[in-house]
């Protein structure tokens, strides 16, 4: 289509794309260069360029004697990893059941899961903090894992239902005719064929838990149990912001999930469009 454009239109087109790229990339660029600067360079000689770049902020950040950041990263991995594993397991079981098996109230379970997905966490955090405290799960990572897996399951189930539906029933029925049990057909036929869907759902669940701030702030009080977002948000509550250190922490927090996103990009985009468009 573009070949039919005049030179002027082409110039306009590519200028628009360039402006777009600048708007997207500039904040990320600035975040990275500030993470490489010491306070005196940030405040006394402000510049948009990485002058006097140093890795000192990262060295300080990961120094176990100066802070808990390594512990925070470990907590985040434990919480996000466990929540993802359990939620993908539960939601693939549920999606299989809702797509392939016939029983009473099946449609109502499907509707309940959809409504659960749409219920915002901000309505739930007040009663949940009472419930979690009463279950003695306050200030533990278990409490966070439990909450995060519940929040990611509805979307995971919903997306996997779509995925399982796209796989012909004949395949697992054939396996069962050949003597496989239902569970074997599920694990050996359906799950391997749904690998892209499972990857997308795992990425959503992991990043959802890795990025979550509100429940982390509410449920975890002791500093050595804080997850990464909570730890970083405590860095910006003082009067003087140590921007270099804060940005070093932000870059470190963003890198794992962004690598995950780009490795799984085609699955994620497919999952996303299945979620928003084709559901």
């Amino acid at each position, binding site marked *: 289509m573009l070949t039919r454009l005049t030179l002027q239109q082409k110039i306009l*087109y590519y200028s628009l794309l360039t402006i777009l790229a600048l708007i997207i990339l500039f904040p990320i660029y600035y*975040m990275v260069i500030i993470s490489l600067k010491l306070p005196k360079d940030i405040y006394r000689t*402000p510049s948009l360029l990485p002058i006097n770049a140093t890795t000192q902020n990262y060295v300080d950040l990961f120094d176990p004697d100066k802070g808990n950041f390594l512990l925070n990263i470990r907590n985040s991995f434990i919480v996000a990893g466990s929540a993802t594993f359990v939620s993908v397991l539960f939601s693939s079981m549920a999606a299989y059941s809702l797509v392939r098996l016939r029983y009473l109230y099946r449609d109502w379970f499907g509707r309940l899961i959809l409504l659960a997905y*749409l219920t915002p*966490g901000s309505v739930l955090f007040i*009663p949940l903090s009472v419930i979690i405290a009463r279950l003695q799960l306050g200030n533990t990572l278990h409490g966070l894992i439990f909450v995060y897996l519940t929040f990611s399951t509805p979307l995971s189930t919903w997306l996997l239902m779509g995925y399982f539906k796209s796989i012909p029933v004949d395949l697992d029925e054939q396996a069962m005719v050949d003597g496989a049990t239902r569970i074997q057909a599920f694990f050996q036929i359906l799950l391997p064929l749904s690998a892209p869907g499972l990857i997308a759902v795992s990425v959503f669940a992991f990043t959802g838990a890795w990025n979550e*701030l509100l429940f982390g702030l509410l449920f975890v009080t002791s500093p050595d149990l804080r997850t990464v977002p909570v730890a970083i948000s405590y860095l910006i509550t003082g009067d003087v912001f140590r921007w270099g250190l804060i940005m070093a922490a932000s870059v470190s927090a963003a890198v794992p999930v962004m690598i995950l996103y780009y490795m799984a990009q085609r699955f994620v*985009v497919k999952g996303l*469009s299945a979620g928003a468009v084709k*559901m």
Partner: protein
Amino acid sequence: MTQEVIRSPQMEQAKPSRMTLRQSERLTGYLLVAPVIACIIALIVFPFFYAISISFTDKMVGTEGNFVGLENFGYLLRQSRFTETIRNTIVLVTSVQLLKLVFGMGIAVLLNQEVRGKNIWRGLILLPWAMPAFVAFITWKLLFAAQGGAINMILLGTGLTTTHVDFMSKELAMPSVIIASFWRGFPFWVISFLAGMQNIPQERYEAAALDGASAWGRFRYITLPGLRHVILVVVLLSTIATTNSFEAIWLITGGGPSNATMTFPVLAYYGLQSLRIGEAAAVSVSLLPVFAVLAFIVAVLLQRQED
């Protein structure tokens, strides 16, 4: 007669085995769906109704609280802070959604052309959305900062302003939050619109081109109607999410200055911190009617699509 005698034992054999097969299918079905349903009931359904019931009490931390009817809601409505919260939410959600709709659609149209390096552009678009929301908002807080912030540096450097602009002032705090939320949120819209555009048959564009339709005409009469459903779903889903987003406000402004950016989740969070649980619950419950209407429409749309 003989035939019936011969057939009947087979049928009797077949019947119970088919019954148990169906029963076992039903049992497996319930067992497999049970963990998810149990989690949802424990951490979503029960808290949902619990929130409503707390909002009618004067519950504080450590006490059960007494039923006080609508007193919490009356108390909220008499506070100017609460009416400001309503106004801020409307301003924030409408502006962010309009920006995302207009620019999201524009960018999707740009990227739907035969552009060189299509996948690179799409990967680039995803960046703000792939980074954690809290990282994006902290970075925008830095960009807006008076000391060390890039925007002030650019404004001063180019001579557009002569003094530092205070982006966290009462007038500019809300626009700042809107810009940051837009930056982080628009990729989801672009990608959804692009996916929707793939489903519009190419022949319609060719036919329109033959009829001499202009680019605007093709967009207005083919692209837009073709995306009607996607637009509706994305707007509704994103409206629910934006109304309830905690991070943007909490990290950039904390609801201030003097409530200029206070929204429901942040107000409820402060309520919880002040330990007046009944009132805090009333804040989040007062949004429920709006949420219920939006969620009902999305649920119907999504299920219709499913069938």
